[in-house]
């Protein structure tokens, strides 16, 4: 009986010893702040070529947007950043973004992550965290 208990605890210890290390955070999977900044740059490139999205950026300060959006993604991905911009609801108030334009932005983000070679599963993790914001963004 005691031998069995010994065996059990030995197995348990072995299981602990072979358990993989801490799973990487989404922030790390996206390549840290540099990776996220690169995604933002590629996203802005995609926006510029997207007729559904580009007009909305005509009067936007791109430099400020770049910093803010990188912070925003970084924070939502559990990175060590603090997004200081307005809430999604405030940012998009009065912009009348419809479903098609919103999905165009989603598609542009997927394109940007593809170009940055972000794996599909990591892309999905980020999209899953962004999806709940939709209700604060469309038809406002």
């Amino acid at each position, binding site marked *: 009986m005691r031998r069995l208990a010994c065996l059990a605890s030995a197995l348990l210890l072995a299981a602990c010893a072979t358990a993989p290390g801490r799973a990487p955070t989404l922030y790390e999977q996206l390549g840290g702040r540099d990776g996220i900044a690169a995604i933002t740059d590629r996203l802005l490139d995609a926006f510029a070529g997207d007729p559904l999205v580009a007009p909305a950026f005509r009067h936007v300060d791109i430099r400020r947007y770049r910093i803010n959006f990188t912070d925003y993604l970084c924070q939502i991905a559990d990175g060590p950043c603090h997004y200081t911009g307005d809430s999604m609801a405030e940012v998009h108030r009065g912009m009348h973004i419809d*479903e*098609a334009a919103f999905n165009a932005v989603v598609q542009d983000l*997927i394109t940007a992550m593809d170009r940055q070679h972000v794996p*599909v*599963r990591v892309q999905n993790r980020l*999209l899953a965290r962004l999806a709940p914001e939709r209700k604060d963004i469309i038809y406002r």
Partner: protein
Amino acid sequence: MTRYASVIGLLAGLLALALPTACRAGDGRLLATGGVTEVEGSAGGGLVPWAVLAGYGTRDQMGVTAFRTRLDLPDYRLDAWGAAFTWHNRVELSVARDRFDLGTLGRAIGLPGAALRQDVFGAKLRLAGDLVYGPWPQLTLGVQRKRLLDFTIPRLVGARRDRGTDVYLAASQLLLGAADGYNLLWNLTLRSTAANQFGLLGFGGDRGGRQLVGEGSLAVLLDPHLAVGTEYRQKPDHLSFAHESHASDLFVAWFPDKHVSLTVAYVSLGPVAGLRDQRGWYLSLQGSL
């Protein structure tokens, strides 16, 4: 013949309705969220209607799709084609023709080349929810009005009627990253039907009439363009002369862009009109405006 003409008329009507709006047909929804077209012409998987509506139109847009499907079985062949029109991602109207070539059975009864044909007129109403966004699945109420054009053989095997109406409630949801990081789509459909073999063997029989059946689908998107999955569909078993069991499939659907999709599946229909183990390859092409 007049029935045939009425289908052509309805198709033409649907097209006439769709064409002026085609220039306003939208593609604002995300890739693959219109599903493909199931054998009865409704947007869904291959065998099961889903809660999604045909095409890629958002609440501000229209959607139009057309499809062509072939299923090769050991003793039969099913051909299906049709079109669907979606208004504001709220209402879907569809029309489809199924042609079930009797193959072996046809030769056995001295009618080589004989086929069973039915027309299916479908309508769907999205009740609530969104496939991708929000905590709840998309919920849709649908109806399929079926009209069998060749009733002689179904009557001989004991079918009661040559027409019937299926009513179904479908729930579908895409869960982002839920399958080990891959997007997972699930669908459950509850259908009230009296159809034997989708309606191709008529409606009702000596063992009963209308009943509730369950259908389900599960798919994983390996990337935004490629889905692999499986489906299950219960069928009534109302003809003691032509025992019937459930249908199921394994499928791969490819969405190169929002204008075309190609689905390949391995489908099992179980026994059909006395011939056992009908399983074979399914190929379906869908176009969207």
